């Protein structure tokens, strides 16, 4: 016998208490600390900061802990926190040419000013499980070399000097803020890049991969990939000067794309750009490929109907917090709509059966 279901409140409380227990796991195992996550799960922390659009490794590590390692859930926690923060100003644009690079590689030139710096990378490691890690123990220290005392100019700048790459005139228009204005289409490139910078890594990767496989091919070379720290400066109007308020780690990718010319543009190399908070090269490279694919109109290319070329498709679906929320909402009750559908299907079946009988 049905009794009107009461007790939703108690069920919610009990479910959350259980969740907290599950998060902790076996109490006999020492609990993870936030600094441990921050230091030893740094790439997860970076992803949460990038997609959460908030540069704060401690909060990102806390979010990962609270989310039981579910990174999209952690991004969600960060976004929901971020939205409550007052926005009291904007920094000056960061100067990535002046980045203190930990890693800087170019796939287009064997050597170049500033050099190739491999940095801490998984590249060229053999993906063999390291059972020694399971055992723990001390780590041999990495060899040290003095920092190269030379500027690290952008590869695209070197190409630009010869006029081989499309010009990118300086533009001081203030960038729009996706988190403060509704997304309206068509979007500017600045807005697209902003959306891609916080876009889901998996989605961006798949789109970028699809362009490589011919769905909106862009013939990309990694002109340069750099990871390092840049200074963040804020103008103080009262003092009429800018002061450095801290440093953030960024990953920047410039792709150089083969371009045979179009109705409007001469043959030259073109650009795709990716910039992501933290160390996140997969995301930065993906972003620059998708950015380039989205620029077909501006460069007078044909629209091949590829998903990665389709601004509305990409921008409407790249945000994992939107996607996951809407996807998961279908587990909420839909009794009312389903009831309406039930009535409709029953009625239509009845009518179809009657028509069948009449025909026989």
């Amino acid at each position: 016998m049905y009794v009107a279901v009461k007790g939703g409140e108690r069920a919610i409380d009990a479910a959350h208490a259980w969740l907290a227990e599950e998060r902790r796991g076996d109490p006999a195992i020492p609990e993870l600390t936030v600094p441990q996550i921050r230091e030893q799960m740094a790439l997860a922390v970076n992803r949460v900061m990038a997609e959460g659009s908030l540069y704060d490794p401690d909060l990102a590590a806390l979010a990962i802990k609270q989310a039981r390692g579910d990174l999209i859930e952690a991004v969600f926690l960060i976004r929901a926190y971020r939205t409550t923060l007052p926005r009291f100003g904007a920094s000056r644009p960061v100067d990535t040419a002046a980045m203190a690079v930990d890693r800087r590689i170019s796939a287009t030139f064997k050597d170049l000013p500033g050099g190739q710096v491999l940095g801490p990378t998984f590249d060229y490691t053999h993906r063999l499980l390291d059972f020694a890690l399971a055992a723990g123990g001390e780590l041999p220290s990495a060899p040290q070399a003095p920092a190269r005392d030379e500027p690290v100019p952008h590869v695209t700048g070197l190409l630009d000097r010869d006029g081989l790459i499309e010009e990118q005139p300086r533009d001081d228009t203030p960038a729009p803020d996706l988190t403060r204005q509704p997304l309206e289409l068509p979007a500017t490139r600045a807005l697209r890049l902003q959306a891609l910078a916080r876009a889901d890594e998996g989605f961006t990767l798949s789109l970028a991969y699809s362009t490589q496989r011919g769905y909106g091919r862009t013939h990309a070379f990694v002109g340069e990939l750099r990871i390092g720290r840049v200074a963040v400066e804020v103008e103080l109007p009262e003092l009429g000067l800018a002061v450095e308020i801290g440093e953030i780690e960024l990953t920047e990718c410039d792709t150089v794309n083969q371009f045979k010319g179009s109705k409007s543009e001469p043959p030259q190399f073109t650009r795709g750009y990716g910039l992501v908070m933290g160390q996140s090269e997969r995301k930065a490279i993906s972003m620059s490929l998708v950015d380039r694919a989205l620029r077909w109109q501006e460069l007078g290319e044909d629209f091949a109907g590829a998903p990665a070329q389709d601004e509305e498709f990409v921008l409407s679906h790249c945000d994992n917090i939107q996607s996951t929320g809407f996807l998961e909402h279908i587990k909420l009750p839909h009794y009312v709509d389903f009831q309406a559908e039930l009535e409709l299907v029953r009625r239509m079946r009845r009518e179809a059966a009657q028509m069948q009988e009449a025909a026989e």
Partner: protein
Amino acid sequence: MTDQAYNFAYLDEQTKRMIRRALLKALAVPGYQVPFASREMPMPYGWGTGGVQVTAACLTPDDRLKVIDQGADDTTNAVSIRRFFQRTAGVETTEHTAEATVIQTRHRIPEQPLSEGQILVYQVPIPEPLRFLEPRETETRKMHELEEYGLMHVKLYEDIARHGEIATAYAYPVKVEGRYVMDPSPIPKFDNPKLAGNPAIQLFGAGREARIYALPPYSDVVSLDFEDHPFTASKADHACDLCGSATSYLDEVITDDRGTRMFVCSDTDFCASRQAQGHRGRLSPQGDNKP
């Protein structure tokens, strides 16, 4: 007790002002979807973030809030949203439709007629009624601008040609004040007639899609149909098994594994009030029957 770490009703005043501006515009142009800078809320997109933002922008400390999902006050998401406002705004809450000044709803309009001074806030998943006919926002906005609704009429006509009737049971499109075609959110079409001429303010919030739209009190709202296939509001052909109401919208509940079913009001407050007044249904505990 409210959470001191957050502003009244969670959102900061700047954000509320932005939402109120969108609401005023929406009320001035009934049925028109106003883009607004939707915020990330502490509940997921698709779970009522649009409604929550609209409610947050409307609430004052003196308000009395009711939250329903599927017509019920005790469904988990309704509980969660009600608690959110208890915690962040400290407003009084109620389950009684008549006592509420603000009602946030998902998928239903309460059975009891609303009155002037009340605000009904709808949670909207897909605000664009033309979305499943044309996936591009850039296109659908143009269609609204040009009042180009032919595609919708063709769709409804094709339904009739194929199924003998318009095969839309919920989120049934309406035309507002003879101008904009509007999605009434996924309410069953049974509820559509209540949209029209309603003395309450009806506000619609779509968080993920960043759109707000509205029906001012006593708006002219017409469910789309054809002269020879007029709109009909339909429901299960039963009476409530608990309160005996023959006019309320019913949920179907499967009570055993042999296909036995019962029908109960989806509006829990309506059903409970009727039972309190002594109305009884087919399966009510035995007692005085006053159907």
